[in-house]
């Protein structure tokens, strides 16, 4: 059954996919960071906020809302920017040159990174490949957007 983006169930599905790729993520190395995802509504609606915690080789916690959780950084953007990234990943199996997280956030054109501590911010780069591969797992998740539309069909299978 399809989950909705953005929702807690969507990120729990990513967490499950990550657990099924234990060897791949173990090979990428220790992955110790907690970061936030903020999806801003296109209209005046409430933003959707999630906290993802990674420890050793796993995604150990996914929760909706900040609830005072301490994060190293928060990736924030309008729903349309997140949708563009997820559509691209779903179609290609992994983000292309224009849609990697670093590219989308580098000058804050698509998504922005918020942080209080530059050391926490740098964790986005210390674990860059793990984070990208985690997001790329969304290519395998069956999901819909709140208006009921689907991401594009895969043009090639995910690697």
């Amino acid at each position, binding site marked *: 059954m399809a989950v909705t983006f953005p929702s807690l169930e969507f990120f729990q599905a990513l967490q499950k996919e990550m657990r099924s790729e234990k060897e791949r993520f173990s090979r*990428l*190395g*220790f992955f*110790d960071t907690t970061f936030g995802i903020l999806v801003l509504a296109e209209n005046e609606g409430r933003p959707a906020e999630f906290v993802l915690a990674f*420890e*050793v*080789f*796993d995604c150990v916690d996914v929760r909706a809302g900040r609830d005072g959780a301490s994060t190293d950084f928060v990736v924030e953007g309008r729903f349309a920017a997140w949708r563009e990234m997820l559509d691209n990943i779903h179609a290609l199996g*992994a983000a*292309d*040159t224009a849609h*990697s997280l*670093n*590219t989308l956030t*580098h*000058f804050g054109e698509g998504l922005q990174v918020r942080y209080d*501590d*530059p*050391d926490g911010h*740098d*964790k986005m*780069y*210390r*674990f*860059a*490949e793990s984070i*990208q591969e985690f997001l790329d797992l969304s290519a395998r998740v069956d999901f819909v957007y709140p208006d009921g539309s689907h991401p594009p069909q895969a043009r090639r299978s995910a690697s």
Partner: protein
Amino acid sequence: MSYLSTTDFAEDPAFVDRFRRTMKGDLDLSWLDEPRERVRCRPQNERRGLTFRDLDVGSYGFSEMPELIRQNRSFAPRGATMPPGLPDLQAEVNRKSEVWAYNVEGYYEEAMTRQWNATTDIPWRELAAIDLPEDIGKAYAQLLTFLTEVEMIATDVPAKWMGRLNADFFEVKNFIATQAMDEARHAEIFRKRALSTGWGLMRASAQNEFNLKFLRDADSFAEASLALHLQAEGMVLTLFRFSEYISPTDADKKLFRLVMQDEARHVGYGMQHLKWVLDHFPEKREVIHRHLDEAENFVFGGGYATEVMEPFIILSGKGLKKENIEQGIRITMAFQNKQTDEYFERLAKCGMPERRDRSRLWKMVELGKQAMGVAS
């Protein structure tokens, strides 16, 4: 040979006699009676394995290490008993606050698990099938030439200092050993990618090499670390992120994500080291400022290196036409502003917010921003 034994063992009767007795079964065994501190070290987190932090116990640990290492002048591993007669190896750095960093043991473990392989982790076959347009290909090959040059010195600097640190700084020595390996891998991957573009290595950069010489020739480890880990690698980290941003192919993006991970870890060590220095050796603050004055002078002088700057403009503007160049200049200036903003942000977080007021680099960048109408 610069060091000779004072004994010719083959001609030494006492040595020969002891050796013969041992080989006949007359063992000495006095080492068995050394009074030892017995400890039980177990992984605190089974999934993580047995880490250096798990070994931070008693005389073997690092938390109780004194600021000045007066006793151990040899290669004796920290916590081992030291019999009389160990040589004085004349370590140059014996003060903990000159080398230590908060969480250095964690950075080491992270480095060990996040190693990757330049030969096998990049889809070289996929890259071989891609022909870049001449202007992009040459600009990219020039950028890769510059990066190879940078990474070779970044390998040499930690390797130079490794043997000069007191053996008690075990975790730091191991961390900078991983750094030397990381940087060697970066030099390897940039050389391989330059040659695989078909354009080969382009022009070395004199201005860049003056800067690299400054990094290599620092008077102390603390100064070398400040200039290498925090200033240079901090700026190179932003450069790697920018390079990922302007990379022409998916495989090149992956390449830059892998190198940026290592670089960010080195910057992390640099930040935690500077915090440690300021917390434990506050009288160093002025020395740090003076070293940064000169480091930043070299950074500003880097503007002379057209063979470094121009490839950024061409790659970010995606070509050599007038409109490409104009776009490339806008993007490259935004990158440079980001690079200096993040550098000063890191220094402020480490406890040097006053650096902005003192720095001529900051003033020049701010003037540039004002001229361009960019908000700071």
